[in-house]
């Protein structure tokens, strides 16, 4: 009896293994059902005409799901013979995409950042989209201020951007500032006063999800722009050193702020959800994130949410309107070895435009890469913070780069690691400068 039971169990296990390992297309379709559009409902098309394009894209939160789903629905109307098969982008530093490229399995269309564009260019894994940008009319509809995110440094287009130039915003909770009678800091001295007052009242001055290294890079960059409007973009280009006065001062300032108690204990182990909930629950007075947080901040805090210009350093008043963030070439790219590369390029341009429409309509974002048709109206009025940003755009004197927009991967890794290190009390600015300068020296060799 025991033997029979054991045999049955083994048989069942084998059966499950076989079923689990088999590549059942219907199952694949099922898992991507939410994101797949087919033209099966279109009576004039047939299976023989269908083209399936594999797409590798972010699909993890409202800011990525809503635009993708919208683009897919629109695509089904204008390209009934095209079916998209979504492969959800992993948050893995590009490991999966790199592996796809190394093994010759790149999807037809894929989302890509600047550092990977550079790598893929060298190995012929990314298609030049200059002609497609013209033939599809993408360039005609592009916003002039978005040229920095459309064209690569070599003058070619490698990806269709699906967002505009985005910025790092310093959010604050108006109600908390009023409650504790704290002036919204415009200078460094006022910032220190605010930190002290909030700490005395058991309020965390600023919550930050410093477990993610891009935001610590942004924090350092924010401070670097106080002394040099080019921020970390200058270091990325190899035109400056961490030991230069501006960058050394930025490191010292961040160290001072950490010691002054600006961030919560254990900030380097705080993720986005934890940091955001501290801010939205009124336990933290300020919060650092990209402008995409505007919608969520408005939803959670209503009129109490606002953003401020970064505090100014004495003697560097000219840099008041220099902001961290900004764009870099990136977006939807096309595999040059794709069987349907021309169609894929057309679809990539189309999807990017539809993303912009969706961001305009549903995400309260008017700062985009392409102009949105005038007939399209936002679902709800833009949040006050976005209106403010839109109005203030002309005052911004310069922008820098987000961590993912940095062109040199060596520098990107170094600044991410080192800026997170600076968020710990016992890491000295001298150590930061030494480590970063070593990497910059290597970059310039």
């Amino acid at each position, binding site marked *: 009896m025991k033997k029979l039971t054991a045999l049955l169990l083994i048989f069942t296990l084998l059966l499950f293994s076989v079923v689990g390992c088999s590549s059942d297309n219907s199952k694949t379709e099922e898992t991507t059902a939410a994101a797949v559009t087919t033209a099966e409902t279109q009576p004039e098309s047939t299976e023989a005409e269908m083209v399936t394009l594999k797409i590798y894209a972010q699909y993890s939160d409202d800011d990525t799901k809503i635009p993708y789903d919208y683009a897919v629905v629109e695509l089904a109307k204008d390209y009934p013979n095209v079916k998209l098969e979504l492969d959800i982008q992993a948050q*893995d*530093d*590009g*490991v999966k995409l*790199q592996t796809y*490229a*190394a093994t010759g399995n790149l999807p037809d269309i894929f989302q890509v950042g600047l*550092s990977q564009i550079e*790598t*893929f260019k*060298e*190995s012929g*894994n990314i298609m030049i989209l200059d002609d497609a940008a013209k033939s599809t009319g993408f360039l005609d509809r592009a916003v002039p201020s978005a040229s920095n995110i459309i064209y690569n440094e070599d003058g070619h287009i490698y990806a269709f951007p699906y967002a505009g130039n985005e910025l790092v915003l310093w959010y604050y909770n108006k109600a908390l500032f009023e409650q504790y009678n704290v002036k919204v800091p415009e200078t460094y001295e006022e910032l220190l006063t605010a930190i002290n007052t909030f700490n005395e009242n058991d309020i965390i001055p600023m919550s930050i999800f410093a*477990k993610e*290294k891009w935001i610590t890079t942004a924090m350092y960059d924010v401070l670097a722009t106080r002394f040099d409007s080019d921020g970390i973009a200058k270091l990325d280009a190899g035109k400056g050193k961490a030991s230069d006065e501006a960058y050394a001062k930025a490191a010292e300032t961040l160290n001072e702020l950490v010691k002054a108690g600006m961030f*919560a*204990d*254990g*900030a*380097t*182990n705080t993720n986005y959800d934890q940091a955001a909930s501290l801010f939205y629950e009124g336990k933290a007075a300020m919060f650092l994130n990209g402008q995409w947080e505007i919608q969520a901040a408005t939803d959670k805090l209503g009129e109490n949410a606002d953003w401020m210009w970064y505090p100014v350093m004495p003697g560097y008043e000219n840099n008041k309107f220099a902001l961290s963030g900004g764009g870099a070439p990136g977006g939807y790219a096309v595999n040059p070895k794709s069987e349907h590369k021309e169609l894929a390029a057309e679809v990539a341009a189309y999807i990017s435009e539809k993303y912009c429409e969706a961001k305009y309509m549903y995400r309260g974002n008017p700062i985009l890469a392409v102009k949105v048709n005038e007939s399209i109206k936002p679902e709800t009025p833009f949040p006050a913070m976005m209106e403010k940003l839109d109005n203030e755009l002309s005052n911004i004197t310069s922008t820098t780069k987000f961590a993912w927009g940095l062109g040199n*991967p*060596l520098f*990107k*890794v170094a600044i991410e*690691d*080192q800026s*997170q*290190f*600076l*968020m*710990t009390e*016992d*890491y000295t600015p001298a150590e930061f400068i030494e*480590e970063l300068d070593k990497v910059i020296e290597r970059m310039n060799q």
Partner: protein
Amino acid sequence: MKKFFGNKLAILVFTLPTLIIFSLMVFYPITQVFYKSLFKWNGLGSGSFIAFDNFLRLFDDKLFFLSNKNGFIFAAIITVFQLLMATVLAIAVSTLKMKGRNFFRIAYFIPVVLSVTVVCQLWLSIYNSDYGLLNRFFETIGLDYRQNWLADRKHAIYAIAIVNAWQWMGYQFALILAGIKSIPTSFYEAAQIDGATPVQAHMKITMPLLKETYKFCLLISVTGGIKAFTEMFIMTSGGPGTSSYTLTYMMYSSAFRSNEFGYGLAAAAILVLECLMAILVINFVFKSEPTVGGE
């Protein structure tokens, strides 16, 4: 038996598939690691040959030494914790007088069958500086010992090592318990008649007879510690900064974040050599003296 070993064809038929698979899946990739570590390579294309430049750079890189140090700290902590705890618990559970032996046997093994991700999330909550169990525990017993367990550059690696030690202790426990079970009870009865205390009996009988089991346990924990990656990847992403990097994490970061595959593979080559060295040393330490019986 002699007849069987005399049949060369049978030996070939039975071993060849394994040898082919081993060569393709293990030996070939390892040789590629060493070969490609001599190149400046971004993971795509063919790269350019730079001989030992990657290794020279590695030995001039502070991060390499920090990563090694962390690997050894990690290995030391998990080895000591797992072997000691597993031995004590296995002896306790194998004692006939102990009540609820089956329960404890299963309970100690449960962490092993949990996913590493689940275990890391569990310990992330335990280590949380605000509401974590550990800080709350110290508060409850009146100790002012509140810590940022994972945000401290000097101590994060210890906190992470404890997670691995806790999870895989059950595995060592199972191996040692199986070893103890295989020792005939007559040995202990004889020792008892000779007046040996239980501690003496275990020191003189259990430990020497479990030599091979301990060798195996030591091999897994030492090599597992040197090449640790998953826990730091999930819990700290190598941070704060680079303070919980291990050699494997350094390899990952160089290859996949910096796109310096050649440099990452140089770190991997050193890692392979370190693991081989550890195996050789452990084998040497546990080398059996030839006995009269022939073994």
